[in-house]
């Protein structure tokens, strides 16, 4: 049995909001196996985003430990954490977060440039391949502002996958899209999950979106209140 892609043990996160302490997460334990297509569900304020931030290495827990691909995130320097995000994690944001001044192609290419491991020819092939698979091969020269919301999110998916990370995190990826478009985005993510075995963890409060997951982790008031596996959830 390979080690899990994500493991959280007794994780707590406390924010200071003025004089009051906000307990965003309390005593969270979570194991995500490779190849899962996991949905984190819960009402807003339940700690979904906080949990994703901790898994994504953009934030560190107040107590407890989070391992991502075998690395204890709290033991990493800022530089190493950034490197971890670059090489091991892809991100999909609720608001797409494309770089406005770059073209579709350049947005997707961006992580590869940061990695700096490929020649421009290799990068071009990889980017085009991904744009092909998200159905935007014809839009590579467009600017994000020239695209619809669904197209933008597909660019974001391509960007998240372009460096072939073992883990992709998506925080409410469909929240800013109509349900049909949202559905196609989830289908696209699922397709990539099945094709490449990339682990996806996405948060949502939309039951229709949750239905696509291989497993659902439910959060309430910063606690994990349940984990249920759905059919066809084997890696």
């Amino acid at each position, binding site marked *: 049995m390979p080690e899990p892609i994500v493991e959280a043990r007794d994780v707590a996160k406390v924010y200071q909001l003025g004089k009051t302490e906000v307990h965003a997460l309390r005593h969270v334990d979570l194991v995500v196996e490779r190849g899962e297509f996991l949905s984190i569900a819960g009402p807003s304020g339940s700690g979904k*985003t906080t949990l*994703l*931030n901790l898994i*994504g290495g*953009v*934030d560190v827990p107040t107590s407890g430990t989070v391992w991502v691909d075998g690395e204890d995130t709290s033991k990493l320097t*800022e*530089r190493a954490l*950034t*490197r971890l*995000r*670059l*090489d091991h994690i892809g*991100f999909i*944001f*609720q*608001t797409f*977060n494309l*770089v*406005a*001044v*770059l073209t579709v192609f*350049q947005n997707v290419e*961006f*992580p590869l*440039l*940061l*990695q*700096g*491991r490929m020649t*421009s020819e290799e990068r071009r092939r990889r980017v085009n391949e991904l744009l092909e698979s998200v159905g935007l091969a014809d839009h590579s020269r467009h600017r994000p502002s020239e695209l619809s919301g669904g197209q933008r999110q597909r660019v974001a998916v391509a*960007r998240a996958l372009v460096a072939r990370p073992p883990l992709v995190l998506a*925080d*409410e990826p469909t*929240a800013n899209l109509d349900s049909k478009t949202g559905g196609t985005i989830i289908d696209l993510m699922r397709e990539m999950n099945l094709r490449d075995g990339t682990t996806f963890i996405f948060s949502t409060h939309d039951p229709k979106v949750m239905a696509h997951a291989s497993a659902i982790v439910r959060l309430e008031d910063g606690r994990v209140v349940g984990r249920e596996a759905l059919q066809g959830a084997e890696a």
Partner: protein
Amino acid sequence: MSGRASSRVRQGKILVEMAMRNLVASRVRTLVVGGIVALGVVVVVLGSSLLDSIDAGMTRSIQGSLGGHIQLYNAKSRDPLALYGGTMGESVLEPIEDFAKLKSAALAVPGVKQVVPMGIDQAMVSMGNVFDVALERLRADVRRRQEQGAPAEDPDYEAHKAHLRRMATLLQQELRQAREIADETSGVYKDRKADFDALEQAVQGGFWDRFDEDPLGSLEFLENRVAPLSLDGGFTFIRYVGTDPEAFQKAFPGAQVVEGTAIPPGQRGVLLGKLYAEEWLKLRAARRLDKIKEARELHGRKISKDEELQRWVKENTGQTRDILLQLDPVRTREAVRRLQEALRSRETDPARLVAVLLDTDDANFDERYRIFYDRLAPLLQLYSVKVGDTITIKAPSRSGYVNSVNVPVHGFVEFRGLERSALAGMMSVMDVHSWRDLYGYLTPERAAEIRKLKERAGATSIAREDAEAALFGGGGGGDAAAPTAAPQAIDESKLLGTMGARQMRDELFQRRYGQAETDQGVALNAAVILEDPRRIAETMPRLVEAARQAGIEVKAMTWLEASGIVGQSMRLLRMVLYLAVLIIFAVALVIINNAMVMATLQRVKEIGTMRAIGAQRRFVLVLVVVEVVTTGLVFGGLGAGLGILLVHVVGWTGGIAATNDTMYFLFSGPALIPRLGTASLLSSVAIVFAVSILSALYPAVLAMRVTPIEAMQSDE
């Protein structure tokens, strides 16, 4: 390794591309920031080009007129040397006793081309008055009549007599006005009563009827009693540099003889400063006309609106006596004829005609100015001194006496670039022998000699000195003159017994001094000319050391230091420019900083996203810096281009015209043509670069602090 390096290059490419696109995306901000940068660079390029050429011009003017490259003066001097005078008058310098010794020591220093002796001072100068001129003419007539016999018809003689009588009449009219105001019982009135009586006598027909009976006695009466009442002429100040004229001319090409000739090698003489002559020696009415003309043409002032111009016109119409006194009856008739014609007037009174001519307004000024110079001026002597005249200079000597020296005027000198400088353009150039006579410095040997003479002669020593005063002073009056340090003094005084003073003076003026005589003697400072002006700093200590070896303690000064206030104005201008540049770029810094902080805040989400995706902090930092520096360099480049273009445009259009004397002085001429210097271009690049980096720092740090969490926040 090479993979890493090339990844940097790739990151660099996307950085620059993002920076550029960010700049284009927010055009307004980029244009505002860039505009300020460009403006700053234009100011730097244009300003420093202007200053550089002012600097070069002033350097040329000052070095080429009086400053040379290095100035040496006695180290024991109380004041520092100030070639153009200090704020507290002339600087007090201890003399360099034997210039020849210093000269040979300094010439032995490598790179030294020339060493010129100098002594700068100011003194009273007597220009003689118009009475003297008229009396001199009449005296010549009397002498001729005595030697050759009096012809029955002698129109010159009669005309000259009539001229003097007319002058006395005019003088009486002028003084009568003063007398009407005066209280007849006051002491002053009593003192002057005798003067008025003498004048009254000179006006009466009886005096002139009896003139031929005792012409010499009558002349003496006019000379001693009447001429002194004329306030005209009298004394003015003169500032001069005593030097070796031949060496001076070679060393200072900027000193140009504009009228007359240079002082012949080895001879005595003075070249009067042209500006000095304009200011002090020119007929006042003519000078005022010149000034009105300049005010109207250069500054666009109007007589009708300008109180000062109105005052000048009023002074011109009220003070026609200067002009009338110069005209003898023959010339008066000619002047009346010419003015009647030019002014289309039937007026026969010359005084009224001249007054009408000088009563100018904005409409007729140009015509009247032309009439004055074309028609009237040829009948007049415009300057109270002309080439060939002899002037008498009186100065308090080192020994305490007032020394008096007669010097022939060989010409007028102008200092190129400093023609209009009230400080520098006033300078006259005098031969070092006359200067030494005035300075009256006693060498120790000479002093000892005089002491011995005094002991031997006892009380008669005073009489002897009076005799020498007559020799050197000519019209020295009551002043006693000290014996001079000239080595030939004894020889010259031997001549006294056999010749009259006038003849004696001519002998003195004809005398040629050898180079050794010129060099062996006192000087106050020495201008050193170098082969290579860039070696000033290193040559200065060598000169001081060489002089010390020769037993002379001197201080060395650069030409700029020695030029005092004149040179300081350059430094002041530079400081003003630097201050302006500093302010512009301080403002630029604040604005760029603000703009970039705002840009960073607007892009927090984008920056957070990049950080989340895996961009290191340094990437973000460099992104901001690249944006600002790119703006700086692009617009700085545009500004530099514009500055260069402006410099050329100003040059093509003939430069910036000097509209007043200060500008004329600063520009070292009538116009300033800016010259582009590599230094100004490089410094503008450096400033822009520094300012960009500085103004990018804070926003860059802000951007660096953006956490990836910011990317996760939704837009609400």
